[in-house]
C-alpha cells in the first residue's frame, strides 16, 4: 500500500479535520462525530442529510453547502455510519421544516438510517427519506438486497438540494425523490482495485490486462471480467446496458454523469465522455445536462461509471443547473 497517510486507523478523523480546515467558515464538524454541516442555515426550509461510509470523497461532505446538503454523515471507510451520528446530523439539519435523508441502498446504510429516523421520531423531528438504488449491474429483486446506490446519488443531492433551497415542503421533496430515483441508472467499470487503508491490500485482484464491468463502489463483484478494452468499446457496453434498462426512444431527454472512481485521470474521463457523446447522439437522445469528474469515488480505484437520468420533468433540469456553493460542484 503506497499512500500518503499517518495511522490507517485515523484516516477518517484526520481527513474530516483537513476538510473542515480547507473549507473553513463554510462547514463545520460536530465534535466527536463524522458529521459535517454547513454554517449557512436556511431557516424554515427542509434540511437534507446524506452520508454513508467514507472512501467516496468528495461524497458526501463535498456536497454540503448552500443549495445542496445541510449535513453529511461520514462513517468509517466503507462502513455505514451509526444511528446516533445520523441523529446528530438530523438535529443540525432541522430548521423547523423537517429533514430529508438520502440513503444509498446497502443493508448497513438502510438499517442505520432507519434507526436514526426512529430516534428522530422520538424527538419529534419530521423525517422522510429516499433509498437510491441506481446500480443496474445488480439484479433487482424484492427477495434480495436489491440494487446498490452509486454515483447517481450525486444527482439526487443536486436536484433535491435545489428543491429544498427553493422552499419545497418535506412532502413535496419526498414525492419528487420518489419520482426521481427510478429515473436514474448507473453502470461502471473498474480497471484496478481500491485499497482500504486499514486493510492495507487491494480488495480484489485484476490482472495487468483485465478490467471488470459492474464493480460496485466498495469493490463488490461485477458481472463480467474481460481483457481491457478501448474507451469506445467500454462506452458501447455501458450504453448498451443502460439502453436495455431504460428502453429509451429517440428524442428522449437525459442528463449524463461520467464519474471517475478515484485514480482515473480527467484525461481518460473526457475521452470516455467523447465516446459516450457519439453513442448517445446515434441513439437520438437529447442530452441537456452533462457532468464529468470524480464525484463518487472508491478511494484509489481506477475506473469509470456512467449515469443517465431520464429528464421526465422539465423542473429537474432547472434544479440541476441551479448554481450552488459547495466544495465539490463547480
Amino acid at each position, binding site marked *: 500500500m503506497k499512500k500518503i497517510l499517518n495511522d490507517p486507523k485515523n484516516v477518517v478523523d484526520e481527513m474530516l479535520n483537513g476538510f473542515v480546515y480547507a473549507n473553513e467558515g463554510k462547514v463545520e464538524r460536530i465534535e466527536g462525530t463524522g458529521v459535517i454541516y454547513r454554517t449557512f442555515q436556511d431557516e424554515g426550509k427542509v434540511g437534507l442529510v446524506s452520508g454513508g461510509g467514507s472512501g467516496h470523497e468528495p461524497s458526501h461532505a463535498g456536497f454540503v453547502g448552500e443549495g445542496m446538503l445541510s449535513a453529511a454523515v461520514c462513517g468509517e471507510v466503507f*462502513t455505514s455510519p*451509526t444511528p446516533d451520528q445520523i441523529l446528530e446530523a438530523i438535529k443540525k439539519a432541522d430548521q423547523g421544516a423537517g429533514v430529508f435523508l438520502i440513503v444509498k441502498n446497502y*443493508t448497513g446504510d438502510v438499517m442505520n438510517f432507519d434507526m436514526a429516523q426512529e430516534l428522530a421520531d422520538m424527538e419529534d423531528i419530521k423525517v422522510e427519506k429516499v433509498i437510491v438504488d441506481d446500480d443496474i449491474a445488480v439484479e433487482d429483486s424484492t427477495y434480495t438486497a436489491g440494487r446498490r446506490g452509486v454515483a447517481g446519488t450525486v444527482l439526487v443531492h443536486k436536484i433535491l438540494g435545489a428543491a429544498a433551497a427553493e422552499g419545497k415542503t418535506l412532502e413535496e421533496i419526498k414525492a419528487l425523490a420518489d419520482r426521481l430515483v427510478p429515473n436514474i441508472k448507473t453502470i461502471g467499470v473498474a480497471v484496478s482495485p481500491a485499497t482500504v487503508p486499514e486493510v492495507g491490500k487491494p*480488495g480484489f485482484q485484476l490482472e495487468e490486462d483485465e478490467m471488470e464491468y459492474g464493480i460496485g463502489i466498495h*469493490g*463488490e463483484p461485477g458481472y463480467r471480467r474481460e481483457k481491457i478494452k478501448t474507451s469506445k468499446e467500454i462506452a458501447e457496453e455501458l450504453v448498451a446496458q443502460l439502453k436495455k434498462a431504460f428502453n429509451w426512444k429517440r428524442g428522449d431527454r437525459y442528463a449524463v454523469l461520467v464519474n471517475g472512481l478515484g485514480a482515473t485521470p480527467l484525461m481518460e474521463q473526457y475521452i470516455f465522455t467523447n465516446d459516450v457523446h457519439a453513442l448517445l447522439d446515434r441513439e437520438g437522445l437529447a442530452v441537456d445536462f452533462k457532468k464529468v469528474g470524480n464525484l463518487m469515488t472508491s478511494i484509489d480505484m481506477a475506473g469509470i461509471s456512467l449515469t443517465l437520468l431520464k429528464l421526465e420533468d422539465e423542473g429537474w433540469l432547472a434544479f440541476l443547473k441551479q448554481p450552488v456553493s459547495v466544495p465539490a460542484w463547480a
Partner: protein
Amino acid sequence: MLTAETAAAWLHAFAEKINENKAYLSELDSAIGDGDHGSNLARGVQAMEEKLQAGGLETVQDVLKTAAMALIGKVGGASGPLYGSALIAMAKQAGEDEKDVASIVKAGLDGIQKRGKAEKGEKTMVDVWVPVCEALKSGALTKEVIQNAVDGTKEMKATKGRASYLGERSVGHLDPGAVSSGYLFEALLEGGILDE
C-alpha cells in the same frame, strides 16, 4: 441464572471471543463481503466493555440496554443495527421477565428480523439465532447445536446483505455474522447462565 452480573459476564465473554477472532471474522467477511466484520464488532465490544465496566447497572435490562447503545453507536455497517436491535428487544423483554432466557433471546431474534427482514436460509446471522431459539425453548442448547447452525450457512446462497451481490459465488463460505452470533451463544453456554 440470568442476573445483572451474569448478563455482564456473558457479554464480557462474548467481547473476548470477538477480540480473539477479530482477524478471522474479517477474513470470512473478505471472502463474501467487505472484510470489516471483525473490526466493526471489535470496535463495538470495546465501547461496550467500557460502558459495562463503568458499573451501576442493576438489572438485566440495564445491562442489555447499555450494551445495545454501545454497539449501535460504534459498530456501524449492517451488523451494528442488527446486534443493536437484538439487544434492545432483549432488554425490553428482560423488563417483563429477567429470568426467562429463551423468551429474551427470542425477542432478540424478532428484533433482528424486524430490522433486517431476513428469513431462515438467506445466509445471515438469522440462521444461527433461529435454531438457538428453538433449542433454548426446549432446554436443549448445546455447543453442537450452535456449531451445526453456524456450519449450515456454508452451503447456503446469500440473498440478504452484502454477500448477496455474489449470488452463487457466496456458496462454500461461512457467513461472518453467523460465526459471530455463534460466539455470543457459546459465551452464553459457558457462562453457566442456563444451568439450573
